[in-house]
Each structure stands twice: as structure tokens, then as C-alpha cells.
């Protein structure tokens, strides 16, 4: 069964899969890992006839990424970040802490920032996903990206995609943020090289010019 917004799943199973069915799938993955019991044996335990069990093997997952519908087959346990990076080749979003504390994997979900490492891809079905690649291109930078370039708001660049996404969301929500609001806006993004002040200046510069 492909997980798509059109799958006709019951309403309470938001985003195409219920927590319960997912947990069953995930449980099977873990069990195989630890004790090598065949997946079929685990899958049959307590299985209810009226519920679709997804995984642990790959299932088709169709997502709307950067205004394009894209479908790949991946295990339902795949995080949104891994799906973007490993299945769609969108490597702008980085895996750094892998637990939602650094913001390097920040993407927009219906315009709001999320840590892509800490959500399942199947939970993003039916949502509008925007990665750094969907914000501006090398040939067509946004005003914010241009300001990042000019203000040198990057050093090694590994946190930069997440910073760009967070600041884009900040300016969309609040076109005239003050310094403290900018600091708060990127409080979930860690930069180890120390570009915070340059980023703040880049956001201020963009805001002054009325850009995004």
C-alpha cells in the first residue's frame, strides 16, 4: 500500500499511518535486529485483521518536496532527514546531532520549522516540505541568502543550510525582527565556527531591505 494523501485511510490515522500500526512495524525492525526472529513470526503476533501493517520492509512514500511530488520506496521507520538525503539526494540538510538539538537538519513543514532528524518521513505525507534546496538556487538566491553571502554569515558552512531555513521562517513570520527576536529565531541552531553575529547582521540587513 502506498502511503499517499489519497490513500483513503481513516481520519484518526493522521498523515496516513496510525501510531499503533507504525509501532508494530518498528517493533518488528527492532526484534529482527536483536534476536534474528524471522519478521513473519513477529508480524503475526497480535496482528488484527482490520489494520494494515507497514514495514519493516520498504513501502512507497510520496512526499511533496520543494513544490514537487516525489515518491520513493523506503522503510516506514525512515526519518524525514534520511529520506531527503539518502533517497532524494537532497544533502543540504545535515545530520549533526541526530536528536533534534542542533538544528542542522531544519526544514519547513507547511512553512514551520521542524528538525527533519526527529520526525518520520511518513509523518510528512500530505505536507508541504521545503528544504534549503527549495529556498533559493545558486543562480537565484533569495535576499536572505545574498545577505548571508555578503555578511560572511558562514564559515565551514555545515550549519548554514539549517540557519538559512530557520531565518527564512523567521522573516516570513516576522518581517521586522529585533536583535533578540533574531537570536531567539536561531536559538535551536548551533554553529560551532561562531557565525551568530554575522547571521544576525544578515537577517537585519535583509529585513531593512524588506526582503526574505
Amino acid at each position: 500500500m502506498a502511503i499517499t494523501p489519497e490513500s483513503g485511510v481513516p481520519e484518526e490515522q493522521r498523515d496516513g499511518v496510525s501510531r499503533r500500526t507504525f509501532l508494530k512495524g518498528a517493533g518488528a525492525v527492532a526484534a529482527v535486529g536483536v534476536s534474528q526472529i524471522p519478521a513473519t513470526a513477529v508480524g503475526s503476533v497480535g496482528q488484527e485483521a482490520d489494520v494494515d501493517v507497514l514495514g519493516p520492509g520498504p513501502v512507497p512514500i510520496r512526499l511533496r518536496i520543494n513544490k514537487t511530488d516525489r515518491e520513493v520506496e523506503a522503510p516506514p521507520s525512515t526519518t524525514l532527514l534520511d529520506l531527503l538525503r539518502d533517497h532524494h539526494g537532497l544533502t543540504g540538510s545535515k545530520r549533526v546531532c541526530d536528536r533534534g538539538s542542533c538544528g542542522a537538519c531544519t526544514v519547513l513543514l507547511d512553512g514551520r520549522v521542524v528538525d527533519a532528524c526527529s520526525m518520520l518521513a511518513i509523518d510528512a505525507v500530505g505536507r508541504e516540505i521545503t528544504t534549503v534546496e527549495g529556498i533559493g538556487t545558486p543562480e537565484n538566491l533569495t535576499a536572505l541568502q545574498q545577505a548571508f553571502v555578503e555578511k560572511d554569515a558562514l564559515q565551514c558552512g555545515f550549519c548554514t543550510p539549517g540557519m538559512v531555513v530557520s531565518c527564512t521562517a523567521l522573516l516570513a513570520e516576522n518581517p521586522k525582527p529585533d536583535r533578540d527576536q533574531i537570536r531567539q529565531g536561531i536559538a535551536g541552531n548551533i554553529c560551532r565556527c561562531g557565525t551568530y553575529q554575522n547571521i544576525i547582521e544578515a537577517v537585519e540587513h535583509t529585513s531593512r531591505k524588506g526582503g526574505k
Partner: protein
Amino acid sequence: MAEEITIKVGFGDHFRDLTVRLQDGDIAPWQPDQQLDVVGQRKPRLDAVAKVTGTAKYAYDQQPKGLLHGKILRSPHGNADIRSVDTTAAAAMPGVRALLTASDVFEDPTARYAGAEVAAVAADTEDQAEAALRAIVVDYDVKDFCVTLDASMAEDAPQVGRGDQKNVERTSPRSRRRRRGGSGEGGGDQQALERMAAREKEVNAILDDCDAVVEGSFRTEVQTHAPLETHGSVCSWEDGRLVCWASTQATFGFRREMTSNWSPVGAQECRVLCEYVGGGFGSKFSAGREGVLGALLAKQAGAPVKLLLDRSGEQTSAGNRPDSLQKMRMGVDKDGSIRGFQIRSWGTPGSGTGGAGAHNDGIYELGEIDKVEYGVRTNCGGARAHRAPGWPQGSVALEQIMNMAATAIGMDPVEFRKKNDSHPIRIHEYDLAKERIGWDQQRIRGGAANLCTGVGMASNLWFSAGGGGASVLVRIAKDGSVEVRNGAQDIGTGTRTVMGMVAAEEIGIPLEMITTRIGDTDDPQGPMSGGSTTIGTVTPAARLAAHHARKELLEVVAERKGWEVADLDIRKARVIRNDGSDTGLSFQDACLLMDDDAIEVLKARPRRNYAGFSDTNAGVQAAEVEVDMETGVVQVKKVVAVADAGKLINPLTAESQVRGGVIQGVSFALHERRIMDRHQGRMLNDDLENYKVLGSVDCPEIDVVLLDVYNGKSNTQVMGLGEPPIVATAAAVANAVADAIGTRVFQLPLTPKNVLEAIAMKKAANKPGTKKGARL
């Protein structure tokens, strides 16, 4: 035939003439009155667009066809020997394509800390690799362990090392025998001990004779590098040749580690690629065990393998800045001169003893010094070089005892520093820092109210003029395109951009007309990014190659046009005459006159540096803090960083380097600390939420003042700026906190707990400062 020239060296109002004998083929350094079009301009990085759009591909992002995923199994025990590793079940698991044990690869059956490598697996997916790791059965001979400095230094401490290794070993001064690689025992050491005893007696006598003696015992904690991109590589064997996309600070060093005869990899040929690297800060000089395991897994599997560490692996096993315990006594006279300085310091670099020294006996004129230093083994992950290794922790102690000494004789700390400073640049930097931080402003300080502010100052010192070991290829093509190539990496400092700027300046074209290629060992050799020497090593080669490429182009023009070559120059992409008039020929049209497809010039950097203006670069920093006396929370409001780094090529990226150093320094001062579980022997905060690094909300305002110094040491006379700005920051913050709360916090980080303890101790004791303190 060396040419002798006279150049101007210095800065601001402090220039003098210097006679320099140019090495064969070298060109004269730029002069202060020379009009430069590109160098000195604030230029955005050449790779900035790739970085802001997410199109920059790091090692972590490489996905060659058929990529397998590598994972490392780590020991959970604080200290163990590995009796056996049973991989039978793991090898038979789904998707597993290669499996290695660390004891086989490294011929080392010990696992001396929790996190030590035990085995590695490559599988089709990450999940499969992790599942396989869980199926590996290891028989450990578990031993007692020490994971803190104090535990290891205790009298009845368990042995950390093996054989006759002691937990605590003197690392400086070294005995004659040790210097020759001996064990440090026996007659050679006896002589060293006698010399040390004599020195101690001598300095004790001086201290006894001083007007005031201050003493302190300072501690700093282990700081991890936490680069956002972890360590490791994507390795692929192609027709017997190893290709590594590595996250490294040393492309050529990485290659050497893969191809040397001592390497477990032993590749005949290897190409290392590293166009971008997500931070290193000193921890990525070596390929590390992760690099070796990745290459060998790929070989065994016959397929490309990605093995970059997970965050826990990075935090526990990929290096750190050692902690320190520094006991000091400083003797001063009332006129402000420092006469004697006694230092005993300890630090742990993990299970070894080297590399944990603290640079706490430099920067100032410190009189007669008696210093003994010890390395302390602990069952913790090993240290690696960390942005100015040994300096920030040394500075934290030195700069605080400097302030204590100034206070003891009633002298302003800045005047006290000036009195004991002979650096030709730094001596002019103090007043700049003083003015911009508002040093003499009225403040509520000394714990006089609930919210107190304070200011503190500290100094930098660095040694980064670069040296030999770099060649640059400049290629001017018939179609007018210009390429500049060097195989070294840019770790985020902006090396790529400055290399391009120097070549653009020398050829006489805008930066935008240049394409740079870096991070590829198939290109001309370059240095590792260490000691802040990359820019000083690469740019003179770039300038020299560009100089000769331009000369060859002008020779073509002169010949084809029948002009006098000595009368020609290129400026702003136009061919001009010496009188400044335009020849009517653009750079592009000039290139079209070539018979060949391109002019290619490869030039090496002259190995030696000239005497120059100053062998070192300096810097002064001043911090302003606000401390809440009730909660102990320290907020760094502002840091003024006066910095110099020879000739400024790109003030925009230079400023970023300083800001970055300051931010890491503030982070070290306020937050960073590796926490070890004394019962289990494991690192508790091996992640990025409990290992706290400075975030945007805590980030102070940073005011960078850059001095442009014509130091004359090379043809670009530039010095690196990666490390110097981190030296002083934590010390300046610590001094500011002492100024604010009216007592000193001897323990970093300056957490609320440590600050409140210091305030409470002051209230309890409330007695005046020490004079003529007890001997160490």
C-alpha cells in the same frame, strides 16, 4: 643570485626600513604606499553561494553508487582488555558486507576507555550495520579505571595504563634520556631532578625577596571539538587505487596515512578529496582509526563505504582539549615588575601522557621561571590538537594571576601588563581595547549589588607566518579563464578565497574572473590546516605563480604587438603601460593572442621566511560581563578583540575568524565541560544537548579591531588568524567576572554553581589576599 632590497615594515605610525635578501625567484612584499585593487577588500567567500544553497558537498554528503554504511562498535567499559571477539553471528546477518576487529587491524587488544574501538561493520543500510554490531560478542577482561584527573592522581589509584606505565608522569622539563626516546628513568632523570631542585630553590629565593607574592590554583575542564561534521570518510577502491572523500584538515596527511608502509591500509595509490569540511578545530589532522577502518571495510566489501562517526563517537573518541590543574606563585615588586614565577601543572590527554601541557609561561616578561609539568593518564578518549592547543587553558591561569599580582601592588591590570610586555605590536593594542570596552567607565562592581558588571583583559600570542610545503598552479587559458589550484583544504577559514584574491591581485584581474580548485591530492601539494599556517604557506606560492603567469602573458602580448614588455602591466583586467595609459587591449583579448591553449605556471613557496617586523602576531581582548549575584549566572555582554595577523588579505573573513575564536572562547569560559560518570567510566554528555556550546542567545556583541601589519616575512606577509583569537577570551571573561563579583572563581567553566561557590567562600572567609604564600 639573491637580490637585496629595502622594504618598509610595520603598521600605523610604526614603520621602519628593513633590508631583505630575496630568496631565489621570490618577489618583494607589497609596500604600504602600493595601490592594491583586490587585496585588502572585503570579499565574500568564493564558496559562499554553494554553502547557503546547500549545494556544497561535504564528505558526509558523498553518495557513490553502491554505497555501504560503516559503523563502529565501541567498548562500554571504562578500562578493559579484549580477550576475544566473536563475529560469527554478525557476519551472517542480512546486508553485512564487511567486518573487522580493532584488535586485528591495530594489533592492540586493549580498550582503555569507554568508547574505544572494538570492531567495525559495513552493511547495505545503517540499520543493518547497527544490528550487526549488536550481534558481535565480545569477551572483555574488565579492569578498574580512573576517569578524572583527581581520581588518577590519588595515591591508591588503579593503574590506567599497562606494563610499568605510571598514572602521572613528568612531561617537562624532560630528562636527557627521555629526549632521546628513553623511558625517563635512571641516571638521565636523576640529573634532571637535580636541575629542577636547584631551579626551585633559586626561584623560591627570588619570591622570598619580592614585595608581594600571589598564588592561585586554577582548573579548566576538558573541552571537546564538536565540529558539526563528524570525522571519517567515504572510501572507494577503484582499480586498486583508494579514493577517499575525507573530512580532514590535511588532505595530503590523510593520503600519507593511507599509503605509508606503517599504515594498516597500505594502499599503493590514494587520492583524497575534500572540497568542503564541516569544521575541524584541530581534531582532523589524522585519518584516525575511523579513517583506517573505513578504507579497510571498503576494501573487504569491494564497494564504497561511508564511515563517519556518530555524535557519540565524535564526542568520546575524536579528540578534545585536555583539562588542567595549574598551581602558580608569582612574585612582583611594587614598581610592577614581575621577578619570579613558579608553576606546577597537570592535565590529562587520555590514556597517554603527552600533549596536555598548558602554555602559561609566555606572552609577558615573567622574570625567572620555575615550571614543572605533568601528564596524567585517565581512562578517557585521547586528546587531539584543539584550536591553539594548550593556550586558552594556560591563559586562563596566567592572566588571572597577572590580575591578582596587579591588585596586590595596587596597580591597574592594564598598566601592569604594559609594564611587563615587550611585544612590538601588542604594546600598542592595549589602549585600543581599553577605550572600546570603556575600561574606566563607572560600574557597579565587586559584588556591591545584585547585578554587577566587570571588565577583564587578556592577551594573545601566535606564530603563524607559514613555511615551505606548498605549490600553486596558475593556469591562464586562451579563452581568458584563470584557474588557481592547490590541493590543501579550506576548513572554513577562507583559504580558498584568499588564495584566489592574491592571484587576482598579482595578475591584475578581479577576483570574480578566477576559479579556484582546492582539496584534491591530485593537485599541487599544500599544508595541513594547523598552527594557523595555511594562509601564510599557500598565498606566497599563489602570488609567485600568478606573477610568473602574468609575466608570460605579457611576453606573448609584447611579442605579438611589438611592444616593449617592460612597459606593460595588467590592471583591472586591462593591459596598461607603465605610465598608466590603456593599450586598448583587455585581459581577455590579450589571452586570445596566445599560440598555446594556456599558460601554466607551477611555483613553490620559498621555504624560509624573512626577518620581518615581528615573528609573532599578538592581540588584546577585553570582556565586559554582567553577573547575577543571587543566581550566579554570568552574561558576557561584549568582547573587544584587537587582532593582528600580518597583512590583511580579506578583512571580511579575517573578522569572522576573530569572532569565531571569541565565541568558542566564551563557550569554553561559560559552558563547556566533558562530564565523566565516575561509577561507569563513561562520558555522560556525549551529545549536543548536554554538552553545551554557546548559542545565539548567549552570544556577546563582538567588536573586532584589525590592525594591518606589513610584517615583511614573506611576499604576502600574511599570518594566520584561526588560533590567536581564542587564546585570550576565556581569560578576559574570567578576569571580568572577578571584577564584577569581587572575588575570583578558580574553576572553569564559570557556571552558576562555581560562581556561587566563590561568592559564598568570599563571604565565609572575608580575609585579605595572600602575601608571601606557602610554597607549592
